[in-house]
């Protein structure tokens, strides 16, 4: 398109190719090159120590390596996988992983929504509350697990003491007749304990994720709802939750990644017990692979985690990018 001029200047020309320029553009000015150089070390590092081990895990699972002989790589095909699947422990491990993860997610969703509603408001002492509420995530997992181990001790648990003090525990009571609840010694209590610990330590992160979206909802929307006469729960379900849906899903998917693949809590509290009640997949992989010495089998078990983790990651990515438009 040409200029339209009645009077006045302006070169009337067509398109012109940028002519050869004798000046050399320095590297420091080339955004693409600079960007690649700046990104490369981190990418190389992550590829070397994440991607490579991942493929190594696959290779290991197809071999017969053991702790005693880690570099013996005899290709055994899918033997490890088949032998692992046929073990009774496999079905238990898979089932336990699914149950514990699912229960954690349900409880976590409800508590996250409530906690986000609280933190969306301004109140005196908010800073202190933030410190308190983030503690479960901040505390190293292993140390927190030890803490819970003591909290749920079969003799000296303060929770039991409280229950006894209000008359809910002890001979002739609802939760009795024993004086203690053997949290880690009874099947469903043990599972429940692991679920509670999981929820306890992932609640801060999922709150933060959803809070990031909650604070983006403009106040005017709530003021309008109030003018329209909407009560608290109606506002929650018809305004807040739909707006937060995507981030809530992202938080849940992240939690799947954290919980499904984690073995620290089980390793330090129930140790897979009582019986096999809380022996989840990653813990079983640890028992077989490191403690039992069968590296290749451990790797094979751990790989069963992968499809779930991949599905969760892909879904999380798609949700997140849908949000970013």
């Amino acid at each position, binding site marked *: 398109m040409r200029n339209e001029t009645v009077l006045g200047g302006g070169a009337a020309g067509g398109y012109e190719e940028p002519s050869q320029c004798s000046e050399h553009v320095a590297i420091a000015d080339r955004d693409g090159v600079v960007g690649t150089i700046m990104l490369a*070390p981190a990418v190389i590092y992550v590829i070397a120590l994440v991607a490579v081990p991942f493929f190594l*895990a696959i290779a290991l699972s197809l071999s017969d390596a053991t702790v005693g002989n880690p570099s013996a790589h005899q290709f055994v095909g899918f033997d490890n996988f088949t032998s692992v699947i046929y073990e009774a422990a496999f079905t238990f491990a898979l089932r336990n992983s699914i149950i514990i993860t699912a229960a954690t997610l349900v409880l976590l969703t409800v508590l996250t929504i409530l906690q986000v509603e609280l933190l969306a408001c301004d109140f005196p002492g908010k800073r202190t509350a933030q*410190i*308190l509420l983030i503690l*479960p995530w901040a505390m190293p997992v292993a140390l*927190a697990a030890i803490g819970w181990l003591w909290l749920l001790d079969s003799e000296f648990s303060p929770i039991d003491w409280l229950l006894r003090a209000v008359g809910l525990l002890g001979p002739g009571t609802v939760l009795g007749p024993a004086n203690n609840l053997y949290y880690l010694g009874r099947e469903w209590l043990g599972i429940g304990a692991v679920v509670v610990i999981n929820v306890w330590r992932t609640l801060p992160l999922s709150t933060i994720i959803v809070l990031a979206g909650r604070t983006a909802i403009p106040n005017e929307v709530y003021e309008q709802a109030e003018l329209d006469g909407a009560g608290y729960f109606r506002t929650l379900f018809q305004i807040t939750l739909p707006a937060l849906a995507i981030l809530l899903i992202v938080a849940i998917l992240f939690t799947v990644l*954290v919980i499904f*693949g984690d073995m620290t809590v089980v390793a330090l509290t129930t140790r897979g017990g009582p019986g096999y009640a809380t022996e989840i997949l990653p813990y079983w992989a640890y028992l077989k*692979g490191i403690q039992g010495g069968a590296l290749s089998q451990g*790797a094979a078990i751990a790989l069963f985690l992968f499809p779930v983790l991949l599905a969760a990651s892909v879904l999380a990515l798609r949700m997140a990018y849908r949000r970013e438009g």
Partner: protein
Amino acid sequence: MNVRTMQISRTVGFYVALVLFCLFAVFPALWMVITAFKQNSDLYDPMNNPFLFNLPPTLTHIESLFTQTNYPIFLWNSFIIGVIVVAITLVLAVPAAYSLARLMGHWGEHSSIAIFLVYLIPPTLLFIPLYEIVTVLGAANTVWSLILVYPTITVPFCTWLLLSFFRSVPREVEEAALTDGWSRVGVFFRVALPLALPGITTCIVFAFALSLSDYIYAAVFVSRTASRTVSAGVPTELIRGDIYYWQALMAATAIVGIPLAVVYGLLFNWLVKGFQVELPRSPRA
């Protein structure tokens, strides 16, 4: 119910819920601290109110933690590992985050969720092959095995965090520096970096804390007491057979856990910011 009553019950309900959530979060830590100071005969009496000091609080357990166990060694190892891992993380993550924020186009800028996912890859997936790699490199049973592997956790997390900080540096300020005569590299060092300093400080804190939190790698790669970290050492070394020295154990966990919580808590808002999506820029006029 008139308006005033509704308002009061709303406020009361709010604070009750808040207190309940705070209690839930902090109860284990509270119990840790109380336990650490309790005398044996007070603690191990099931009839005693566990929340009161029926016998006066004592420092003996904390003393023995530091003088009679390997706890100080664990702390030292964790500290050294933390410092070196922080250094490695900064060198890798800071330029990577800037590159993604400004130099890698639309996808780079919006890669934050993908990066966070790399952080979430569980160690249980990789610990067995990594154990192999670490053994082959001769680093097994030394702190170097952890120094080598921890950046796989800290670098993605810190890159993710810094990405949001670099994105929040106003583009026009960087462009002004470009027209003022600096190269892209110059703009990085003289404008982006100084303005992202709070992010870098946050990164240092988190990189240190993340290297403290790992258990799996620490437990699997290092079995020698002298090289153990706090996370791996406390659960294993402070238990003699079946006897748990609970007061010392709880002191050990609280000494590390509570300061971390305070630091994380002070940085709470930065973390929320890391998940906030940048509002779409207005179309160019």
